[in-house]
């Protein structure tokens, strides 16, 4: 027995000594994701997005994306990008340790990824302490960019912007339908995310001249929401905005149907996008608007989305998921900065990141482009999409210039 233990110890000790020698003209960037643990499937999904992005940057592809037609980084003699992955296990301490490890041991010149806001908090802190740029394209907590970090950049719009977009969509529908919508209800689960969404909705409702007629929090993973829904019905809102994870989204949809709550516009967030939501509520989920930052449907206005999805499908055997699509963007932003900096010095990359100005056409996301706010380093051109469930599918309906199909208004009577 003792021999077996000894052998195991030896394997563990000797394994890392067989390290591969780094090739010349390779630029290392780090990517940290929860590759094991409860969020492992999501982490693996995000990883595929980064891998594909780097593939496209390094290889030659006939695509309308930056770095696709050239191999590697042009300004550095076609230097290839190599990704070093780190496993956060979904834990903030490990996320920090892994980020530090890949920065100090693998000498990566920039870091991307994270996925979970809580883990990104410590991982980005590690990058800040070690003065290496961190480009995030997949976590949305507003708190992340409120810290005034110098080395931290976020491409994806945070929850606040996504909430603001919901009201902008209502405004657009109002104008197009020539109706007057005033009464908005906000329904939110009372953890960090839901509370932030409600805060932003209140702020922007005031700005856009809506009245909040009901502001109803509820406990995450509620078991009965009849009283909440009755309150909602009494307020008689024209628009219902609901921040929910999947189980609450299902319960509220069913209760609203049972009590015949009849708004003109029904907007859901996050939970409504989960595949199990539509599987459970079926036809009752029809005509809900749901926020997203990616939809395969965008291909009708952005042909490159379909081409990328084709390559993705060939490689991984499934359609590109919204999570993979989110992670896909950050490596391009980093490559763009390195290319303009003509250097792999982290400080030069940071300066180049501050001057980033990528057009919307260079992305598979619905953003108008990438340009960072000089103070918060949030992407000022970030924008979310709104999808509508039509015949059991999520179709892009807003912004109108990216819409695949027209929206359905008003929300029809429950069947």
């Amino acid at each position, binding site marked *: *027995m003792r021999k*077996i*233990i000894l052998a*195991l110890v030896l394997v*563990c000790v000797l*394994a*890392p000594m067989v390290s591969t020698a780094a090739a010349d003209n390779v630029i290392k960037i780090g990517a940290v994701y929860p*590759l*094991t643990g409860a969020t*492992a499937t999501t*982490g*693996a999904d995000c*990883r595929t997005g980064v891998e594909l992005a780097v593939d496209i940057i390094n290889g030659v592809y006939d695509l309308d994306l930056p770095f696709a037609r050239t191999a590697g980084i042009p300004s550095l003699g076609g230097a290839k990008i190599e990704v*070093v*992955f*780190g*496993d956060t*296990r979904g*834990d*903030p*301490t*490990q996320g*920090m*340790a*892994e980020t*530090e*490890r890949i920065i*100090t*041991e693998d000498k990566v010149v920039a870091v991307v990824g994270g996925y979970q806001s*809580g883990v990104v*908090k*410590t991982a980005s*802190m590690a990058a*800040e*302490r*070690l003065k290496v740029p961190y480009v995030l394209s997949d976590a949305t*907590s507003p*708190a992340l960019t409120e*810290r005034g970090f110098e080395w931290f950049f976020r491409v994806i719009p945070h929850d606040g912007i996504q909430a603001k977009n919901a009201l902008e969509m209502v405004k657009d529908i109002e104008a197009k339908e020539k109706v007057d919508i005033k009464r908005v209800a906000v329904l939110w689960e*009372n*953890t*960090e*995310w839901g*509370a932030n969404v409600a805060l932003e909705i209140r702020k922007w409702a005031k700005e856009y001249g809506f009245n909040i007629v009901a502001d109803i929090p509820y406990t995450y993973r509620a078991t009965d929401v009849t009283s909440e829904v009755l309150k909602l019905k009494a307020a008689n809102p024209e628009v219902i905005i609901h921040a929910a994870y999947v189980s609450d989204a299902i319960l509220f949809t069913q209760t609203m149907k049972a009590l015949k709550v009849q708004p003109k516009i029904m907007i859901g967030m996050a939970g409504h996008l989960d595949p199990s939501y539509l599987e459970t509520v079926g036809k009752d989920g029809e005509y809900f608007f749901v926020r997203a930052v990616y939809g395969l449907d965008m291909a009708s206005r952005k042909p490159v989305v379909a081409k990328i999805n084709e390559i993705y499908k060939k490689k991984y055997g499934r359609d590109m998921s919204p999570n993979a699509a989110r992670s896909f963007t950050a490596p391009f932003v980093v490559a763009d900065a390195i290319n303009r900096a003509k250097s792999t010095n982290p400080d030069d990359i940071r300066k180049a990141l501050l001057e980033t100005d990528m057009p919307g056409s260079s992305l598979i996301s619905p953003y108008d482009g990438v340009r960072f706010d000089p103070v918060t380093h949030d992407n000022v051109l970030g924008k979310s999409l709104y999808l509508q469930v039509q015949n059991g599918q999520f179709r892009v309906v807003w912004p109108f210039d990216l819409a695949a199909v027209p929206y359905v208004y008003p929300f029809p009577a429950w069947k």
Partner: protein
Amino acid sequence: MQRDDIRNLAMLVAFAIIGLLFPIVATTRFSQHILVMVVLYAVLGEAWNIMAGYAGMVSIGQAAFFGLGAYVSSVLSVKYGVSPWLGMLCAGLATAAFATVIGLPFSRLRGRYFAIGTIALGQMIKVVFENWQWVGAATGLMIPLANQGFASFQFHASKLPYYYTGLALLLLTLAFMYIMERSKMGYYFKAIRENEDVASGLGVNRTAYKLIAIAVSAGITGMCGTFLAQYSLYVEPEYMFNHSISVTIALVAVFGGSGNIIGPVLGSAILMPISELTRAWLGSSGTGIDLMIYGAFIVLMCVYEPEGLVGMARRIGASIKAQRERRGAARCQNS
């Protein structure tokens, strides 16, 4: 002083010297991180040891005390600008006080019921903090970056100051346990562990001594919470009250061998590097092989050496001694 005592003391001193000199080998940031984790979990394992190994109250909810300590110092530092060092002291005192109050009903629970109770405690306190707006609820608190140095308890350039701070905490804890083991208190703890009713019949005030064990254990655990909060500069309920912290603490102590001073230190010195190194080498594959290797170690240990590393060392020591005696006896016969 008896021979055994001298040997133990010598071992402690040797440990201290090894600990102080270790950073000469550990020059990279990652190896320093592993060292920090080793000392942190060694202290946590020792704290668990006081309560479970000596006084026989097996806790699987140490994260409750750990998180509470992290929050006390972080709230004090973020909201009132109190120095984290003072915060650490407050964290220790506050968690000890909390544990005493909680300990009153808990000390009536025995054996597995106590363990179940502690699991529940860990989960309940997490829910409270997830909903408590004043301490940031589910968002948690970020400790703002400050200039590094001992005044701010933040070190950015190197992790060694964190390591030495943790080592100091470990040596203090070990010294305390060394004295405790030789005092009346240590014997009372062991008596309660072996048979509560008999101990009580012999005049040991069991409630009082159980409360002392819980309070001391919680106080040290709370201070470790402050340590991790300053190390990662971030507290969040899901992070600080995570059940896996409770499990790891118990694991480290049991793996090394509970009920004696050196066990948890050995356990942490073996388990933490395995956990960190397997993740670093194999974690990026995303296949979970690292966790399987880590788990295999623990299973092997539980199956073949339930007494932990200390038990293994004792057995090997005994067999060497027996062999020597046999050889000695053989020599006598030959001459």
